[in-house]
């Protein structure tokens, strides 16, 4: 039987949801027009919040908000409330060094926390669980987001933060941790060190893991589940939309319910900006509905996904999104062909003989780009024969070529020999000189 946090909102009918969304969109527009950024943008586009936006469909009239808008508006261009009402900020420096900031009022935080709590309940977490939060605290939204969500649920929360493998294992054993929140690389790291520190999986009480902060494949999830004998749940969030709690799997692990009472979801063609129908892959665009300090309208997440509409056995009516298949901005151009690192990951991590870590290396030979995919072999399925290893190499190369069109060089490496980072694994090494 499905346990709900709030059945009336989680199983809301389509028409009620539309009404709810429109009501909160109007509220959001009122807040948005208090920011200097949206005032200018509406004026420039000759839009008026009240007369131009008469229905949910009119949302399309509003131009997209992009990451650069957040940077350009730093620090206060997107602040919609009096500073006195703000109780927390989360900033992110990003790769360019120009920061972005999201402000939260107490109500904003409460609503965010509620989304996280709802997500945890959807994955079967209850107040009887012991929740060890192995994510970095501080500006990183994953740490605090899940912390407060689990606390509101009434779980025992261990704010162990990231790193310190031995201590994590000791806490897990001594306090009988049942749920962890960690990066997949850290879970692999724990798995590889558990014996060294004198523990066994059987000593632990672990039942569930929430994996986040870095992209990972289905096969990675399965390996973590198999090793620890647990359920691991996918989720989706981004700091611009609070952080974790935007979309979450339920116990059916049937892709991620995106909480449509808090966000209006659109999928667009990243090149033309056109709206795409459900079922078609494109860039996810989100509008906040329950945020007053930093409302964002039609924010381009740069994440590629597909909206799935088939009903979920759990009974929740919020539509689901597929796992993120790539980012519009981490696309690599290799000899003129567009390749997403996630495409490569999907291929190699679905080959069982491949181990935990991998690296995508790009170099230039004369005028040509050269792609080298380094993978580790998976200890448990090592056959011991050179011929099998050669076959594996060929299999990886053929499958990659079929998926990305480019013929890569494949290197096999020892287990745990490629870099695995404790927080975010850096898996693309582009050694091509910039022209």
């Amino acid at each position: 039987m499905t346990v709900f946090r709030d059945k009336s909102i989680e199983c809301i009918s389509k028409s009620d949801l539309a009404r709810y969304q429109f009501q909160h969109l109007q509220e959001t527009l009122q807040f948005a027009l208090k920011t200097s950024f949206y005032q200018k943008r509406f004026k420039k586009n000759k839009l008026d919040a009240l007369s131009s936006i008469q229905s949910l469909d009119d949302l399309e009239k509003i131009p997209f908000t992009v990451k650069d808008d957040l940077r350009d508006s730093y620090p206060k261009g997107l602040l919609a409330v009096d500073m006195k009402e703000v109780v927390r900020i989360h900033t992110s420096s990003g790769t360019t060094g120009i920061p972005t900031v999201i402000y939260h009022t107490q109500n904003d935080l409460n609503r965010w926390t509620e989304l996280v709590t709802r997500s945890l309940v959807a994955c079967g977490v209850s107040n009887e669980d012991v929740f060890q939060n192995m994510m970095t605290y501080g500006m990183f939204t994953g740490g605090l987001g899940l912390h407060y969500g689990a606390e509101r649920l009434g779980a025992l929360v261990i704010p162990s933060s990231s790193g310190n493998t031995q201590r994590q294992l000791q806490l897990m054993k001594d306090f009988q941790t049942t749920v962890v929140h960690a990066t997949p690389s850290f879970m692999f790291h724990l798995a590889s060190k558990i014996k060294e520190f004198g523990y066994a999986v059987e000593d632990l009480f672990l039942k569930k893991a929430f994996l986040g902060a870095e992209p990972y494949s289905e096969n990675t999830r399965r390996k973590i589940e198999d090793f620890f004998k647990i359920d691991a749940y996918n989720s989706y969030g981004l700091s611009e939309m609070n952080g974790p709690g935007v979309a979450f799997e339920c116990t059916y692990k049937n892709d991620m319910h995106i909480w449509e009472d808090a966000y209006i979801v659109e999928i667009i063609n990243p090149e033309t900006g056109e709206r795409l129908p459900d079922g078609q892959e494109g860039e996810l665009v989100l509008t906040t509905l329950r945020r007053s300090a930093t409302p964002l309208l039609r924010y381009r997440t740069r994440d590629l996904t597909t909206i799935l509409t088939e009903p979920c056995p759990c009974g929740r009516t919020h539509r689901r999104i597929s796992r993120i298949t790539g980012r519009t901005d981490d696309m690599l151009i290799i000899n003129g062909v567009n390749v997403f690192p996630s495409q490569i990951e999907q291929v190699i991590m679905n080959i069982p003989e491949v181990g935990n870590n991998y690296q995508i290396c790009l170099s230039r030979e004369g005028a040509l780009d050269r792609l080298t995919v380094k993978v580790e072999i998976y200890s448990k399925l090592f056959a011991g024969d050179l011929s099998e290893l050669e076959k594996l190499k060929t299999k990886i190369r053929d499958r990659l070529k079929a998926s990305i069109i480019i013929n890569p060089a494949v290197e096999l490496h020892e287990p745990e020999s490629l870099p695995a980072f404790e927080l975010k694994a850096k898996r693309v090494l582009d050694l091509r000189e910039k022209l």
Partner: protein
Amino acid sequence: MAKQLNVFVDNRIGRIKSITEVLFKAGINIRAMAVQDRGDFGLVKLIVNHPDKAVIALQENNFACKEKDVLAVVIKDKPGGLFELLKVFPEDNVNILDAYGFAAETIKGSLFFVEVKDVKQVSDFLETKGFKVLTDAEVLEI
């Protein structure tokens, strides 16, 4: 038949040293060793006194390794000793994947390890031709 460990190694400095260090710390004696090289990686093949213990020790240290049955055939330690063995090999249907050997005082001859696909069949065949194929226990006594 003997137990051989096939260990996957990257072709970079110090990997064989690491294997020998792991085995030393686990108190394991290496009786014979060969390396099969494939450019960027290779296989280190080991005959050790406690194969099962060695597998655990190596896997705990993140080495991918696999126990394999190989033939341990006694040959004469004199010119033509190996030729005598190889000339009876049913060449049409047996492909030797890898082979190496050493001279051993105690058996008054040489011990030659042969990796083939169908170990049992080739072992039986060699015995009908009068060769002594040692068991795992016999190999460890040498």
